[in-house]
């Protein structure tokens, strides 16, 4: 009975933690307090252009996963609360709307939706452009700001950039009141703009960089520590927090975080890691333990190619080793038939029991192609038979050697073949 109760408390706590990890505004709530973050800078920019009725354009740059979109969302949420009536939001994504006409139509559609106007799909792109300019004017007269959020901004900078030009040019009139926020992970996104578009762009840039180790540690604490008022039994909370502080103080935990950061220090990566750790939480004890974090780390650092190498059959390994030998002999171009020749010669020399018919080998070869461990050397000759198309190995010798070592069923001959080639 007591165990069941403890379990329900634990699952409750797990739910709370998961909800937190998935809520970007909670994750980034620490940004709100400090004045030097991108959040407060962006908020100042947008809110001053809302209250002072001016136009602005700003570009948010930074690698993926650094919280650009989350910051934009937070700022927009806050502003919607502060100026409930005065903001209308247009969201465009470069992946979806990189075509100018389509983007114009989407702008018109969202404007109509926002202001409860009826929208016609049939309107021409000229109509939509005019409509947008009229709307900018009318909204400006009504003290309403239109916010354009262009995600994947770099993709809008293809072609003639008519959309960006007409947006930025419309913002040069006094009655309009609009803010264009571009979000891009390309650092040279503003260099992509055509010169007259660039001249109209205001060149405000906010750079997002991955956070430092200290910040990440603070973030982890902020995310995992349970507050007193989270609706769980008080005793559980104190126990839980005490254990967690213990873990945080551990050197091993710091090592885990470090190795995580060495590969990818972005916030989204940390969140993914924590989510896994929380999911590994032991329901019986109901607390997070060090093992949870360790297993989460190992699941984060999987090497997919290594894993698939370990799953291969002996014959497939033979084929890979043959290919490797061929490459080592500086044979620049080879195909299935030359691999088979090599394979036969090995079989002749070592008389192993792993001698298979050519059709079987061909099936193994196709399997390797499917797993993308090998690939065709070029994309020409599509109508050629598979056997004759030149192929290439996609894994390195180090990976191959490692996988042979780890594979318990691997015949010794194979290792020898590889090693001899390497150290002779």
């Amino acid at each position, binding site marked *: 009975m007591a165990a069941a109760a403890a379990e329900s408390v634990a699952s409750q706590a797990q739910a709370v933690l998961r909800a937190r990890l998935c809520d970007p505004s909670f994750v980034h709530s620490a940004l709100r307090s400090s004045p030097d973050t991108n959040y407060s800078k962006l908020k*100042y920019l947008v809110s001053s252009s809302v209250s002072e009725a001016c136009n602005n354009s700003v570009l948010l740059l930074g690698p993926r996963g650094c919280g650009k979109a989350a910051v934009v969302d937070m700022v927009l949420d806050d502003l919607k609360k502060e100026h409930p009536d005065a903001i209308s939001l247009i969201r465009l994504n470069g992946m979806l709307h990189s075509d100018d006409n389509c983007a114009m139509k989407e702008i018109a559609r969202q404007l109509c939706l926002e202001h409860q106007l009826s929208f016609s799909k049939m309107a021409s792109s000229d109509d939509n452009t005019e409509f947008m300019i009229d709307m900018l004017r009318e909204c400006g007269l009504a003290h309403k700001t239109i916010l354009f959020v262009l995600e994947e901004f770099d993709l809008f900078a293809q072609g003639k950039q008519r959309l960006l030009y007409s947006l930025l040019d419309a913002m040069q009139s006094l009655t309009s009141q609009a803010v264009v926020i571009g979000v891009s992970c390309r650092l040279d996104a503003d260099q992509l703009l055509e010169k007259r578009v660039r001249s109209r762009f205001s060149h405000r840039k906010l750079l997002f960089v991955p956070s430092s180790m200290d910040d990440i540690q603070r973030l982890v604490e902020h995310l995992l520590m349970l507050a007193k008022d989270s609706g769980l039994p008080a005793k559980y909370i104190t126990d839980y927090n005490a254990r967690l502080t213990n873990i945080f103080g551990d050197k091993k935990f710091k090592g885990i975080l470090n190795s995580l950061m060495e590969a990818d220090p972005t916030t989204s990566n940390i969140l993914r890691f924590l989510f896994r750790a929380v999911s590994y939480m032991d329901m019986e004890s109901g607390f997070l333990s060090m093992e949870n974090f360790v297993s989460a780390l190992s699941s984060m650092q999987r090497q997919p190619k290594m894993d698939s190498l370990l799953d291969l059959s002996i014959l497939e390994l033979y084929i890979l080793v043959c290919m490797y030998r061929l490459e080592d002999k500086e044979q620049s171009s080879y195909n299935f038939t030359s691999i088979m020749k090599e394979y036969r010669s090995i079989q002749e020399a070592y008389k192993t029991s792993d001698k298979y018919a050519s059709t079987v080998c061909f099936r193994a070869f196709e399997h390797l192609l499917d797993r993308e461990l090998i690939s065709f050397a070029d994309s020409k000759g599509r109508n050629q038979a598979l056997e004759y198309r030149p192929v290439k190995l996609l894994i390195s010798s180090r990976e191959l050697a490692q996988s042979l070592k780890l594979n318990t069923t691997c015949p010794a001959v194979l290792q020898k073949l590889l090693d001899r080639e390497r150290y002779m």
Partner: protein
Amino acid sequence: MQKYENGSANGRQTARTLTPSLPSVTVHFKSTFPPSSAFLPVAGERPRMDLSATPSRSKSKAKSSPAKPIAASAEVQMDLCTPSKATPKRKSKSVTSPPPTTPATPSTVRRSRRLLDTPTKANPEAPVKATPTPTSKGKRAAPSPKTPAQREPKRQRRQPKKRSYYRKVVYDGGEFEVGDDVYVKRREDAESDAEDPEAEECRVCFRSGGGVMVECDMCLGGFHLRCVRPPLRRVPEGDWSCQYCEAERAGKAMERPKPPEGKRIVRTAKEKLLASDLWAARIESLWREPDGTFWAKVRWYIIPEETAAGRQTHNLRRELYRTNDLGDIEMETILRHCFVMNPKEFRDANDAGDDVFYCEYEYDIHWHNFKRLADIDDEPETKEDPSDEPYNANTDYISDTDEDSEYDEEEEPTSCSLARRNQTHELAANSRKGRIYGLQKIGIRKIPEHVRCHQKTELEKAKATLLLATLPKSLPCRDKEMEEISTFVKDAICNDQCLGRCLYIHGVPGTGKTMSVLAVMRRLRSEFDSGTLRPYCFIEINGLKLASPENIYKVIYEQLSGHRVGWKKALHYLTEHFSGGTRIGKQANQPIVLLIDELDLLLTRNQSVLYNILDWPTKPNSNLVVIGIANTMDLPEKLLPRISSRMGIQRLCFGPYNFRQLQEIIISRLKGINAFEEQAIEFASRKVAAMSGDARRALEICRRAAEFADYRTKQSGQASLTCNRGDGVVCMGDIEAAIQEVFQAPHIQVMKNCPKFGKVILVAMVHELYKSGLGEVMFDKLASTVFSWCHVNRELLPGYDTLLKICCKLGESKIILCEEGSKHKLQKLQLNYPSDDVTFALKESPDLPWLSKYL
């Protein structure tokens, strides 16, 4: 109206002699005009807008004034004689008693009107003004089937029975003109409406006159300077409130002086208006009914209390809202003038009397929302405007067309009944027709407080003037070029035979090309207004805003004629027009100035669009002038010879600004605002001049710097109220930061914040680059270098796939250029930035001390 020029002016002359009252001559009228009780000023004609009021069109129209049938019949007559009169304007009146003729739905009305029109823009307004003047035959006879030319004598006989419109009427001793603001009586039996004190009484001594009075800004009561305690010497600057209001605000009770026994307080018109016992309205048109009564169409003003939002805290005492509600009233109900001013006029009008009101917003009575009144000055002039007024505008009769054209558009929404409103939902707002109806909805429910109550600091003022959108009062540094443009255009226009010419303007972005041309055109328009210039037609097209180059024909044709056709047809018509065949539009013989911005965008493969456009001016009698603007200097040379020979003759170059000019531009904008250090401006302009000479860039840098300074002061103001160095002034540091942001690429910072293995990869790439001398490196090779380094320096070995992932991430931010990740070990990588940048960024990285030895 262009059409009254020359020959057609005769038509007007004859009309003048026929009609007893001339539109220009003011009609003196005595107030003893028999006011039969039936025609008593209509109380309740205007919808009462209570706080709870629903859109009350029905209420307003549910009046049972006997005047109605007459008016309606008058309409019927008019409808008979001029079919194109079925403007929605007339409809508004006939909602309750629809005339037997046009029972059409609004949209069909519009459409039918369109069909009946000659393809000119001014025609919709023609019926209104046409009444005193018989329509000139040549213009309107052909397209309107219901007015055959032989009807003309009949119409003239009927002339006295029709409404005649005036621009100015002297009625009851007052002179009322279209566009004036007036008080309107609300109820006939309202108390003491008869007496109307012009001078206000002092609130203390209750005598009027006798010395200067000062008005309390809170209760609007007037006080003699001597009656105030302590007495004032002169009228104080700024806000002043009387001692009673101040006491009230402080929470103290202070009895206001009571008037002496037996003396009634006479309220001024202003007070009555603010207590909603009077109305204010703006006269939109004036006319005389066939029976001799004088009527006016007015646009109502509304006091804040009557809006749905009620009086808001930031409303001024003297504030009114303009509505989009129009009504017809008899002149009898008009009391006298008042003055409703826009914010700028209001600020300047210090002692303009008691009847001054403030109006900044328009209130939509259907949707109960507010909208700023647009400043007409800031708007670019509409293209057909120059032709709207007669060429010799300084003769003394002025037709009332411009006012009409104004409200012809604005009126449509007001006259929509419920049925019409339903229809607005069906019309899509982004299509052409729907826009007229749909956009009415946009407005704000309540005027936000921050807009009104905000006192701008110096920095905020500076930011506002530095906005690109703000039109500068003068354009410094481009006098020579503007002179050249204006002589070019004038030469083209003024010659009787306009020889087709073409001007090509080039220069890098942000050097004021378009702005100069537009400024010249504005100046020419004002010259035209003063009557020294022939009328012309100005069309402005931006190449980048066209969906395709061919669309330019469509746009030009639409500007000329107001009709939409496909581009092929438009091309056909235009070619005919310019080669002297059938002319398009009413301004057929006017010279056309065509401005094409971003000319290079019109290039098609066979360059036919450019050829056609540049070929038109060369035709005799084409009357076309083309001004092309583009960035590249040698655009004509790049084109086919037959085009460059037509275009490249006259050129004008806008060179990049040098630092002095930039400085002058910035300083001229910031005149009177003390927010920038002098060196800061010079620094910014020198920097920009060295880089590009782009004025937009310079202004943006200054604005950004002002933003930095503003942000700094606001942050420090939040934290503590201490003033630190350079508070409220933009200093060098801010400019520096802004320039950094604009000109410096952020890659170095990103490289510094790379993950550890990312740094190793970057350094390994530099290493490989120097080793092999080739820009490209294979991932396989790179990975083995990284592994060996990690091995030597006892780092934890990353997995192959981890490395690959990091490479792809770096490739995504374009720090390196790489092929797609599915190539695995065969992926080719290349640095996107110079290797020196990598060296600079990663020389001293704290977490990888061993890295520097490989650099």
